[in-house]
């Protein structure tokens, strides 16, 4: 009788469902239209001949099909209206093609899409960034290779993704790659983000803080006492389990490779090290200690370890004056948030200080991208829709902003103002398609996208761009790393306890659980990758 939420048992059940689903091949999601199976679709058979790669698929031959797009975000009230408009726009460009937008709440997105992929539900386009287990899923075959001539549908990118290849920054297509095969198409936007801090403009002006002196977290300390004394309603420092000021600190020269391993990028030919090595420990300890010190001094909110509040609510309430953040062109405008505190300016605006220049790494360049699920019933069509999202400005803006005069109003040639509570504002500008084709918001600078292009040209490229790690050979160690790392991460990120003993305890455990093996495997795969790619 007792209700127990047993994740393992649940997975087991799902795996059974999957087993049944495999034979039954239920058509759960696309039942709105009779979808063409890849084997019978004319586009598919055409694509088998090599010559097809250059010719446009004959549009009249397209069978009715609905392409499902899965992305994180709150489900939107006016979704259906927007979908209808999209279908209308597609009528001429891709006849017989419809699109279904599926927004899954951020908190559930990863688990839900993973279960769908596992159970073979027919998804088409799935938002699958690196930080949502993209590489492990791709290695397990969850996604279709997009540049593979031996695929039944042929080389999808070459045949149906010409618009993508022409518009996207070529660096992007080097990143979501495993053994030469491309598994996703990144969103065309800024290639990488820098790191830094954002300070609320009104506070900085009020107290005349010289934020240009801030190079690292510790440089903020002198301001905190002032805030504590003069602004009783503001937390001098705010952190919680989801968003900590320790989140986007500079990397101190160490590029993260995942699963607790790093490489010193400032030293040529440097070896992979683990987070338990003395050189890395020293960095971590200094920052964790600082946060604990602030906790003891009463700068940090006391409920940091336990609160379930969302940081945006606290920002809106005017209780936060600085945060740790990623940086890129237009970031200051994006941070603007409505003031709900009842006094002061209408919106809170922020000034950003950079502490780390952007570095284009595999994980940065794969931070926002779409993959085509292996279970897709018509991958060619999925690629055609994706292609249009990179080239068709009207289509993309409908997906991102909805319908003109219903969800937004035009205030300039390329500028819009979103209508409050209009029923469609998924906030997915950076998630999908070619962001440089998005309308600008009224508070964004006219030159935002020129800045992006410039930024992408000048951003430093990591020599390891394109390398990704396959954790499978050491998955026992990786599972241990996950348990141990998460056991201690919350407490370190929220500052209530002296980190010296905690870090020692954690590192002892990590060493014992075989983080050394992960380092070895990482080094091995990295060396192999370097040889294979001539680096």
């Amino acid at each position, binding site marked *: 009788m007792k209700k127990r939420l047993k994740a393992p048992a649940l997975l087991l059940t799902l795996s059974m469902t999957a087993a049944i689903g495999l034979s039954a091949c239920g058509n759960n999601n696309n039942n709105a239209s009779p979808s063409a199976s890849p084997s019978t679709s004319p586009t598919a058979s055409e694509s088998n001949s090599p010559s097809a790669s250059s010719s446009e698929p004959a549009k009249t031959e397209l069978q009715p099909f609905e392409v499902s797009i899965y992305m994180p975000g709150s489900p939107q009230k006016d979704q259906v209206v927007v979908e209808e408009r999209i279908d209308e726009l597609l009528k001429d460009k891709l006849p017989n093609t419809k699109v279904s937008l599926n927004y899954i709440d951020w908190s559930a997105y990863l688990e839900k899409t993973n279960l769908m992929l596992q159970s073979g539900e027919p998804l088409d386009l799935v938002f699958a960034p690196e930080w949502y287990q993209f590489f492990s899923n791709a290695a397990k*075959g969850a996604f279709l290779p997009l540049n593979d001539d031996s695929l039944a549908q042929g080389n999808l990118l070459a045949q149906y993704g010409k618009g993508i290849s022409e518009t996207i920054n070529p660096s992007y297509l080097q990143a979501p790659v495993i053994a030469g095969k491309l598994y996703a198409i990144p969103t065309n936007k800024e290639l990488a983000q820098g790191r830094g801090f954002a300070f609320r403009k009104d506070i900085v002006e009020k107290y005349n803080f010289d934020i240009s002196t801030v190079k690292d977290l510790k440089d903020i300390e002198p301001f905190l006492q002032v805030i504590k004394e003069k602004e009783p309603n503001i937390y001098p420092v705010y952190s919680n389990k989801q968003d900590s000021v320790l989140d986007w600190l500079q990397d101190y020269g160490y590029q993260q490779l995942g699963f607790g391993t790093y490489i010193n990028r400032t030293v040529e030919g440097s070896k992979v090290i683990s987070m338990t090595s003395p050189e890395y420990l020293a960095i971590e300890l200094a920052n964790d200690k600082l946060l604990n010190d602030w906790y003891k001094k009463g700068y940090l909110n006391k409920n940091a370890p*336990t609160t379930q509040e969302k940081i945006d609510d606290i920002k809106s309430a005017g209780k936060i004056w600085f945060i740790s953040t990623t940086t890129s062109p237009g970031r200051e405008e994006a941070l603007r948030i409505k003031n709900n505190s009842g006094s002061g300016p209408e919106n809170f605006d922020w000034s950003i200080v950079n502490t780390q220049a952007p570095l284009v790494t595999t994980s940065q360049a794969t931070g926002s991208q779409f993959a085509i699920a292996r279970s897709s019933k018509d991958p060619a069509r999925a690629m055609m829709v994706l292609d249009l999202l990179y080239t068709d400005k009207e289509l993309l803006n409908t997906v991102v902003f909805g319908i003109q005069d219903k969800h937004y109003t035009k205030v300039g040639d390329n500028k819009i103002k979103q209508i409050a509570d209009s029923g469609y504002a998924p906030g997915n500008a950076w998630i999908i398609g070619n962001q440089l084709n998005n309308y600008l918001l009224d508070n964004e600078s006219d030159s935002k996208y020129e800045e992006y292009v410039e930024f992408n040209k000048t951003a430093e490229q990591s020599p390891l761009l394109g390398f990704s790690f396959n954790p499978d050979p050491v998955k026992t160690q990786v599972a241990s790393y*996950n*348990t141990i790392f998460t*056991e201690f991460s919350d*407490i370190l990120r929220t500052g209530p306890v002296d980190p010296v003993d905690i870090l020692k305890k954690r590192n002892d455990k990590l060493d014992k659980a075989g983080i050394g093996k992960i380092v070895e495997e990482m080094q091995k795969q990295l060396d192999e990758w370097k040889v294979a790619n001539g680096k």
Partner: protein
Amino acid sequence: MATQTSIDRTVYADKKDRPLVYRQRGATTLARNLMTYKALYVMFIPGLLVLLVNNYLPIFGVFVAFKDVNYIDGIFGSPWVGFHNFEFLFSNDDAIRAVRNTVLYSVTFMSLTTVFAVTVGLLFNELRSRLFAKVYQSLMILPYFFSMVVVSYLVLAFLSPQGGFINVILKSMGIAEIDWYSSSQYWPTIFIVITLWKNVGYSAVVYIAGMAGIDPEYYEAAVIDGASRWQQAKSITLPMIRPLIIILTLLSMANIFVSDFGLFYQVTLNSGILYDTTDVIDTFVYRSLINLNDIGMASAAALLQSTVGFALVLSSNVVVRKISKEDSLF
């Protein structure tokens, strides 16, 4: 279902008073039974279906635990990997700690809940006023139906480091406040209090039902012999519900390797610093595998849990049968 049977066994101490179902055994009478109790059987169907779908159907998936599942070959086509998926369960101290915590908590909860439920049952049995008995019972059962998420907020209201109820009291008495969510030593006690508060009322109902079925003549005879209330409880009530206690305990043995995920995950706010005393197999497995997305390893963990639970039920049943044959399950 088995619980219901056991009550009947106790209640109908005299064979001729037992309902038909116990007197007429054998396949020949099955059809007649079905007819006689068709209403009961119909009511049984939904439960049976849930049981089949949730507990029996997944058994076919056991083989997943021995596979390295990938999406290309599908579940059936993926390569076999022997016991490789089980390795992580024994590969570090955390796994052992989780097993230790799980077993200790299960045993503690099981024994304390039984002791408290029987005590509460005895007390209710002594209550004269039917009205009060009903009111008390309802109030005690209520927490059983709270979701653990709700409980976690109630607990947070008590233990929050900022204005939590208990810390306010401690402060007013001049005692230093305690940071509950980062001090692991207090949590065994907290868990016990929560479990008892949540489950005792519900378990007590079963015992009260058992006690209600005891023939009043025993008590009348005892009163004539001058037995006190305490003596009656000790020498009549407790021995009469002994089979019930044994069977309920036996059944809960199956869950000794399983823990209430909500209690250990939600109520602790999944606070890592508390894991020394709060990490159990379910939370450990969840944490290890949520980031790895490997259904083979998740299945391995579930399979191990159920196998150990099954073995425990079988072996404790053997022990009980040795001691007192009629009290064993089968």
